[in-house]
């Protein structure tokens, strides 16, 4: 048995597999399949200061090797989360990451403050949600935007702060550097890439929001590239995600530069994916006589 523990920004994860925000709810539905401590951590559904109704349906469209979603951050609000979901989650024996989104810097700051007084292990700042009209992604696609909001939230945040980056940018390494210099303790990447599907019968976009975020295996090579670009640019740890669906992908993403991983879309085809990925990863480490998984991080040797 290799050592699967990883530490990201001071937070210990018993293994590097974290459920990606928005794909796992607050965990209750998946607890039917296996104890949630199977996972290294859970990044909760994105929460906002006030309750949000979310976007009208349809919110989902399948694409080759992936899917689009435009859930639009439906959530019960941060207070409800703290009162009703967090206590239960904290009992499950896995690290809990609160994923937050806001319309204004003030909202982000207020949430960070509220969550700083709770038992969450880490705050993941989603400045990359492409599916809401206001806020979210517009902070995440320019260096100035990322720097401004990260600096502001950093002041109010007593927990390790992870900034989640959008792939809808020309130069991800600049954005990563901006997050680092503004005081982020870690980076998570990538969020979804904006896409569209059209129903050729009705001539309407399949998703009511017109566009949605692309996730799943289709995205994987873009995620690997971006994680590696960021890894070569910043010193803070990177939580890598985007289309991981098998243990080989996990190894690849770690080699590219990730210290831990998130998986999302793969839950939809196989709720048991984390169990299989962890088994495969463990066997691989044993076979390769690698004693701790963190020895893989960033070990790709570029040509």
């Amino acid at each position: 048995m290799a050592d699967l523990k990883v530490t990201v920004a001071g937070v210990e994860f018993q293994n590097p597999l974290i459920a990606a925000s928005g794909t796992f709810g607050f965990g209750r539905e998946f607890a039917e399949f296996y104890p949630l401590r199977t996972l290294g951590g859970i990044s909760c559904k994105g929460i906002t200061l006030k309750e949000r109704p979310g976007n009208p349906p349809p919110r989902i469209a399948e694409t080759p090797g992936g899917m689009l979603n435009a859930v639009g951050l439906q959530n019960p609000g941060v207070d409800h989360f703290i009162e009703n979901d967090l206590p239960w989650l904290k009992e499950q024996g896995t690290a809990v990451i609160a994923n937050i989104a806001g319309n204004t810097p003030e909202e982000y700051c207020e949430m960070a403050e509220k969550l700083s007084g709770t038992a969450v292990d880490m705050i993941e700042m989603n400045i990359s949600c492409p599916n809401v009209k206001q806020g979210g992604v517009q902070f995440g696609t320019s260096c100035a935007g990322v720097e401004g909001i990260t600096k502001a939230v950093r002041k109010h945040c007593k927990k390790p702060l992870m900034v989640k980056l959008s792939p809808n940018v020309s130069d991800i390494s600049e954005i990563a550097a901006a997050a680092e210099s503004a005081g982020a303790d870690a980076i998570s990447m990538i969020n979804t890439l904006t896409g569209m599907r059209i129903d050729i019968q009705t001539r309407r976009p399949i998703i009511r929001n017109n566009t949605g975020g692309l996730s799943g295996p289709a995205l994987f090579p873009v995620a690997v590239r971006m994680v590696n670009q960021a890894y070569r640019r910043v010193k803070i740890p990177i939580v890598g995600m985007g289309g991981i669906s098998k243990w080989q992908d996990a190894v690849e993403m770690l080699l590219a530069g990730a210290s831990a991983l998130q998986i999302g879309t793969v839950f939809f085809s196989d709720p048991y994916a984390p169990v299989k990925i962890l088994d495969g990863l463990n066997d691989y480490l044993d076979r390769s006589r690698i004693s701790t998984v963190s020895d893989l991080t960033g070990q790709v040797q570029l040509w």
Partner: protein
Amino acid sequence: MKYDVMLCRIAEKKQLSHDVFDLTVEAGPLAEAARPGQFAQIYVPGKTLRRPISICGIDRSSKTLRFVFQVRGEGTAWLAETKAGDFLNILAPLGTGYELGDTCRKAVFVGGGIGVPPLLEAAKPFGENATAVLGFRDKASIILKEDFEKNGNRVWVATDDGSCGHHGFMTDLLEDLDFDVLYACGPAPMLKAVCKLAAERKVPCQISLEERMACGIGACLGCACRLKKDGREYYGHVCKDGPVFNAENVVWEG
């Protein structure tokens, strides 16, 4: 266990019409847990998302589940190619099914096209107290008529082109019927009309909805549908709060 993933052997496969197929799978504990109106998420190789298919029949003694589906795209086309003996990767039983209540009430089950299958198992305990009002495009598209009859239900058929039974809308047939409760599944315009009628007659009515799904268990919030409760509107989720809803809780668009 509320639901789980299982590799289920296909025990039997039949073709019911040119594009509708009928699969019975050995589902062990999933069959034991299943209730009428619930659904399954069936894995299709190479696809990112599972396909939601209603449970059409539950046999607790043989621990089998029955699915009746229409070929609509690549996923259902793949399903139509499977054979008895093949294995399907199934996540089930999912969602909230029909609440049957007192089966001595006079119940009408209104199904349109591929909306018919989910009603079959719900109609069973009602026996001769139930009337199934089934609508199809044409005579060749009629499915499951004999199955409702085997339930002991009365069956009325309507076809769009008049090639069998009543020529026209199923809802025409409802006008002449007397009933205490309505169960419906089918295309949105039909469901709307049924709900309207139920409201007029002041009888309880349960309808089954569809929406594009990812997780199927209520975690991703993908399958939103507009609901109302205590005068407040909100987005519920077809896979968890439904697919069966009380008609009065559903908000129709437009």
